[in-house]
């Protein structure tokens, strides 16, 4: 039965440390405290009673580390007895008014993609504990000491999905105000409120004094009640024992200060005792209480970054989208996620605040792909993402596995759309883009669009979604077919801001569709839109005209302090009319690039200021931008692409490879040269007639199951690609069956496997055995930190490669390319 817990309506007190208390009673270092629920229930009960007698209102079951990983056989007993002990202690202490919190701590594992615990497995592990604990009679779920926002999300989802009890959560930060995986009070507050927690806050990690700045940030960010449970100061060590350095009185003094700041519930963590809690209660009990205030902030987050809408318009990068992009479509079909990641990171470098992610294509499984792309993107960028899909299943998968509070693109005024999208926003949290159209199409007037907006607000409210989590797309339609369209859009933007007091978004460049010199219209329209209140612009941040308009607008509207950003960007650059001539500049010409030996080119490189040498020289020296430029210059000067490849690119690579093997040139240089060659080849390909039609020998690369470090495998990939092989990269932690399936499907002869740990070599051996059995013509080459020729032979590999160049030689041997 759900009891009403008056959190946020009156001040509540939590209990203090349990580990500290149990250690006093004889718990050994390394011993699992939860086992005491079975072997020393009376001691656990006496701890609860001591805290209840000290006056706390909420006390935690002794289940911090209880999960199936730690207790494969005894989980039910341990959790059930923990709640029973708590219940009995409550009766014995005559404190039936107190609430039992089912205590849930972290799993002790790091979640994928950084660690090896899959998100859904974490949800399962927490869910199990929640089911047992709520069945046994806990009054609420307290998730605590979470230092990773992703694990926190898994735990909250598990609690919500497996019981109807209130869910509280407290997180752990360090002195810099960050969680271990980068989360901040602002970023986690947005995410957790989106997930619907009933209260949140901070515990452990530091003493009350160090916690004060973090508490302030939570109180500023949070709309729900804030809980503060610090340690009894900082840990010190004496004779091998850990103790905490502040007394109950000092602790209580600080807690009084924290309570005055506005914390709604306070207690203690490591090192605190019933005495700390008693003093804390006596100093804080009668202080004035203020209920939490709702903060109407629209915040989108990643695992570490929070972007608040309003103020400076946010740039949403639009490039992760297959519409009209042949290469991008190819990449999607081939599951080439690295290509998509590169598109994302380029936009980040160009100044995007948020990345739109749209991977919808008719012939692919969108839920699988968007799930994979969102996860991979979040392992390489901290920018928040906008999940852009019309497939509700894809939307749910991406929202569920997203680490943070995403932006969702989109819902519209149609009944069907609202019914599909709003429940997801309510469950997972997110700022959702509402397109101002409905069953009657796109209203032609601003009045019509505002009416749809109001319908969206009403319906969202019925689902329990607040206005702050809605952003309206005012819709930009091409001005070439309707002269009034820009005016209507701008008027709609203005009214979203002034009448509704809400935020807006726009795909800006649609406005110029069908017109010549689109950037002229786009840049001006963008400025007008921002002036009319546009909060988020979906644009290509690599587009100079748009970013010029943006940066200028920021200066002119007082949003770029001391014009710093503007000056940093443009100081020392020339106006476009003069720098645009770089491409057409005949100076240097074929003379510079066509030479063979040392750098005889003297042309000035505009991008980095140095002279551009021959292509060969640029590659040998590992200069990627200059290599691309040298290739372009040579090709524009009329040099046949194949001549350039055979006469310069390949000889340069060969020489670098030989020097690497001789030991006169080293790994980073080898890779820089490989990158330069790749950059040059990208340019050369544009000049080749049969682009992409050449047949490449396929090679599979994978890091075997259990191994999550893949840097070595990726080095090999760079080199193999450089030498013209078509690498099928299966990634890391790859099960043997997946490798076999890929080898069969693509009819691949050469499979390269990497293992870093002795513990995973068994999986390498298993993979080789499976390949030999099911696809006997497969040749295997192995490498990695623990490998050597003897070991390789022992596990049945055909080749051992000591480094990336050696792998290239193996491939050449297998495919008879060796010279």
């Amino acid at each position, binding site marked *: 039965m759900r009891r009403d817990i008056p959190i946020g309506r009156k001040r509540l007190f939590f209990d203090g440390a349990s580990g500290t208390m149990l250690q006093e009673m004889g718990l050994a270092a390394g011993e699992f405290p939860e086992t005491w629920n079975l072997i020393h229930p009376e001691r656990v009960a006496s701890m609860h009673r001591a805290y209840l007698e000290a006056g706390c209102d909420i006390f935690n079951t002794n289940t911090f580390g209880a999960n199936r990983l730690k207790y494969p056989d005894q989980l039910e007993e341990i959790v059930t007895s923990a709640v029973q002990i708590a219940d009995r202690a409550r009766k014995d202490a005559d404190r039936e008014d107190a609430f039992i919190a089912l205590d849930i701590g972290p799993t002790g594992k790091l979640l994928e993609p950084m660690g090896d615990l899959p998100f859904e497995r974490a949800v399962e592990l927490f869910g199990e504990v929640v089911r047992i604990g709520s069945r046994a009679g806990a009054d609420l779920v307290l998730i605590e000491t979470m230092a990773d926002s992703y694990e926190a999300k898994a735990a909250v989802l598990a609690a919500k999905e497996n019981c109807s009890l209130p869910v509280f959560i407290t997180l752990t930060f360090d002195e810099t105000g960050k969680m271990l995986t980068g989360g901040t009070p602002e970023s986690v507050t947005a995410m957790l409120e989106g997930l619907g927690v009933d209260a949140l806050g901070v515990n452990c990690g530091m003493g009350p004094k160090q916690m004060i700045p973090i508490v302030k940030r939570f109180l500023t960010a949070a709309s729900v009640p804030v809980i503060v449970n610090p340690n009894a100061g900082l840990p010190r060590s004496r004779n091998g024992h850990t103790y905490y350095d502040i007394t109950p009185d000092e602790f209580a003094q600080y807690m009084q200060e924290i309570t005055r700041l506005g914390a709604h519930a306070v207690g203690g963590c490591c090192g605190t005792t019933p005495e700390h809690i008693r003093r804390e209660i006596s100093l804080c009990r009668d202080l004035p209480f203020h209920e939490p205030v709702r903060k109407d902030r629209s915040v989108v987050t990643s695992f570490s970054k929070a972007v608040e809408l309003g103020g400076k318009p946010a740039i949403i990068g639009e490039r992760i989208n297959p519409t009209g992009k042949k290469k991008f479509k190819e990449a999607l079909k081939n599951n080439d996620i690295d290509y998509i990641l590169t598109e994302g990171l380029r936009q980040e470098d160009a100044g995007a605040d948020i990345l739109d992610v749209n991977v919808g294509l008719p012939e692919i499984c969108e839920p699988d792909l968007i799930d994979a792309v969102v996860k991979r993107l979040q392992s390489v960028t901290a920018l928040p993402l906008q999940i852009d899909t019309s497939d509700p299943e894809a939307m749910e998968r991406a929202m569920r596995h997203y680490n943070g509070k995403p932006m969702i693109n989109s819902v519209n005024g149609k009944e069907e759309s609202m019914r599909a999208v709003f429940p997801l926003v309510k469950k997972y949290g997110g700022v959702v883009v509402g397109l101002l159209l409905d069953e009657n199409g796109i209203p032609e007037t601003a009045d019509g669009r505002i009416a749809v907006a109001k319908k969206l607000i009403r319906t969202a409210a019925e689902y329990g979604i607040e206005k702050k989590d809605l952003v309206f797309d005012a819709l930009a339609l091409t001005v070439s077919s309707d002269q009034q369209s820009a005016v209507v859009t701008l008027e709609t933007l203005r009214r979203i801001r002034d009448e509704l007091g809400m935020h807006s978004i726009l795909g800006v460049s649609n406005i110029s569709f069908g017109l010549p010199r689109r950037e002229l219209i786009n840049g001006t329209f963008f400025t007008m839109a921002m002036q009319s209140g546009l909060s988020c612009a979906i644009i290509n941040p690599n587009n100079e005209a748009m970013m010029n308009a943006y940066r200028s607008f920021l200066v002119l509207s007082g949003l770029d302090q001391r014009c710093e950003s503007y000056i940093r960007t443009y100081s020392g650059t020339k106006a476009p009319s003069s720098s645009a001539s770089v491409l057409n500049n005949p100076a240097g010409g074929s003379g510079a690039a066509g030479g063979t030996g040392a750098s005889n080119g003297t042309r000035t490189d505009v991008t980095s200021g140095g002279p551009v040498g021959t292509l060969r020289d640029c590659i040998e020296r*590992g200069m990627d931008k200059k290599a691309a430029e040298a290739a372009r210059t040579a090709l524009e000067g009329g040099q046949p692409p194949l001549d350039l490849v055979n006469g310069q690119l390949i000889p340069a690579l060969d020489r670098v490879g030989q020097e690497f093997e001789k030991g006169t040139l080293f790994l980073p240089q080898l890779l820089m040269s490989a990158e330069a060659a790749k950059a040059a080849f990208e340019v050369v390909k544009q000049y080749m007639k049969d682009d992409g039609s050449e047949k490449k020998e396929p090679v599979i690369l994978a890091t075997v199951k259990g*191994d*999550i470090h893949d840097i070595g495998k*990726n080095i090999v990939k760079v080199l193999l690609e450089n030498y013209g092989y078509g690498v099928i990269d299966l990634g890391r932690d790859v099960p043997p069956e997946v490798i076999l399936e890929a080898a069969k499907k693509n009819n691949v002869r050469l499979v390269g496997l990497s293992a870093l740990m002795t*513990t995973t070599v068994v999986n390498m051996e298993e993979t080789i055995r499976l390949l030999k059995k099911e696809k006997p013509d497969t040749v295997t080459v192995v490498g990695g930190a623990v490998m050597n020729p003897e070991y390789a032979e022992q596990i049945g590999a055909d080749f051992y490669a000591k480094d990336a160049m050696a792998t290239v030689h193996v491939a050449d041997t297998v495919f008879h390319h060796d010279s």
Partner: protein
Amino acid sequence: MIEIDQKEVLRYLGFRRGNGPDALLMSEIEKCERELQDAVLPKSIVRRFPLEQIDEKTLRFAGITIVSHSLSKNLANCSEVYLFGATLGVGPDRLISRAQVVKMSDAVIYQAASAAMIETWCDTVNEKIRKEVSAEGLFTRPRYSPGYGDCPLEVQRDLIRVLDAPKQIGLTLTDSLLMMPSKSVTAVIGVSDVPVICHPKGCESCAKTDCEYRR
């Protein structure tokens, strides 16, 4: 801020025989090192326990029993041990995974530089322990990690459990015993009333290859 031992970084990058990076590579290395300095979140945890030497190859401390000749040798004449865990946090791993998409040569540089940084960070924590016991008139042994010699890698699980490392410093283990964050170290450091003069940079740098304490 953790000082970065430039010589070590170059050694990890493979530079040998007086070869060094050119200016272009050097500036890239420096750029990567600056980013690492911003990204690392060094943390450590140590705990001290009495040590029992059961026989010539069996040790017991903190409720853990370890059968290992080489660790027993390392801990000869010791009556106590420090268990040691140190990490740079997930920052380097994030930089490395990003660079693997954008620029592989940077990934290799981050890898080398963060490897040098975790060593320095361990040395710093180690030095604090040495000072602490030296005030008691005692001496430390070179730190010894699971997986060295015949000391089983599985001991990693025990060290991490006893140190409560996931909660205390965010150091976790995968099922295949890889540490995550990857730039992390766990170790045992012996405490004895008998001094052993050791190379401050550890056994790898020491010329005494027949030393009985060598790991």
